[in-house]
């Protein structure tokens, strides 16, 4: 059971890091995904800022969850983020079916579909599993281990960023061109 909890905790943390890193590679595209979810007409810069904020938040939560495994409150934050994924997937499926969700930037061409809602629910289930009890000894980290995990998380974010940039069109239209 302990190993299952550790795997669940790590898997969701890695997923958040990959999603955050990949989204950061192309905030403009993610901003265009965010736009339909905001009922008010907002400036492009604000949308862009929201997109970057969401990406950074995902990255930060994943990084914290991975490097501070003993902080149980983080597990609840991760579960809340996963539940937000389910809510966004369900809203996207209900109102913007078939549109690209950009959940992983340009890494995977996911769309708002029923399968997407199920995937989000699966991630939330894993996040809930990570709430389970794991032995304190297993979660004990010394400085070296923490630095090692931080480096691994950084590498993962960097690789996700680079992979998303390589996979994406890379040369997106500038915002003012879109507004013409």
């Amino acid at each position, binding site marked *: 059971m302990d190993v299952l909890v550790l795997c669940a905790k*790590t898997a969701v943390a890695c997923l958040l890091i990959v999603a955050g890193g990949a989204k950061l590679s192309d905030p403009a595209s993610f901003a265009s995904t965010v736009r339909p979810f905001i009922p008010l007409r907002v400036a492009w810069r604000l949308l862009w800022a929201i997109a970057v904020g969401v990406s950074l938040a995902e990255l930060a939560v994943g990084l914290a969850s991975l490097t501070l495994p003993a902080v149980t409150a983080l597990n609840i934050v991760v579960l809340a983020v996963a539940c937000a994924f389910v809510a966004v997937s369900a809203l996207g499926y209900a109102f913007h079916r078939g549109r690209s969700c950009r959940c992983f930037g340009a890494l995977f061409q996911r769309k708002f579909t029923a399968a997407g809602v199920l995937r989000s629910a699966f991630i939330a289930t894993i996040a809930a599993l990570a709430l389970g009890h794991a032995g304190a000894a*297993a979660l004990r980290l010394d400085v070296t281990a923490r630095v090692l995990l931080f480096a691994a998380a950084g590498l993962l974010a960097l690789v996700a960023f680079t992979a998303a940039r390589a996979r994406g069109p890379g*040369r997106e239209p500038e915002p003012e061109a879109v507004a013409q």
Partner: protein
Amino acid sequence: MILVGSFVVVALVLCMAAVLALFGVTHVSMSGAEAIERDGLAPGMRAPVWSLVDAAGQVVRSPPRAPLQLIMFTDHSLNAFPSVVDGLREIMAQERLEIVMLTRRRSELAEPMLRFMGLDGISVLTGSPSLYAAYNVRVMPFAIFVDSAGRVRASSLVNEAWQVTKLLQLADLPLEPDNLARRGRFRRPTAGAGV
């Protein structure tokens, strides 16, 4: 019973597995057909600015004075794509459209070949590998439509006549967010479906 610090081991193993998986995904995307599909420039982007002299001594510029310019990235090997030639013949009479052939390097055969194929109104311009790189073009024949404001309107590898004509239709769409998703990459139209 679980070992002390086993979280580190699990976390590092999963992180490295994720890194390897991402390397795999990137490798696939940077090789083969999927990579070629991403060649060219996205609609709405600013196209490179240049002016070149054609074989007749005329200066040709991009962005063009005409409302629309079709830059064909190809050379004398275009004769291996008769359907693309048909597509060019179909659209070249349009006054609002300027068609130029941009070769990667000097091609003495390009102009006689165009004349032979009935495309003698098209200017042949000698480009360079760096100009091709600026347009993100690796494989020929490639078509990029640029408007007079210097914005890319449509861009794709072309192998058949219908692709040339459809690109022109896409180039006519206004640069709006909803249209951008439909541009650049296109699918073969199904029977009875409009473009």
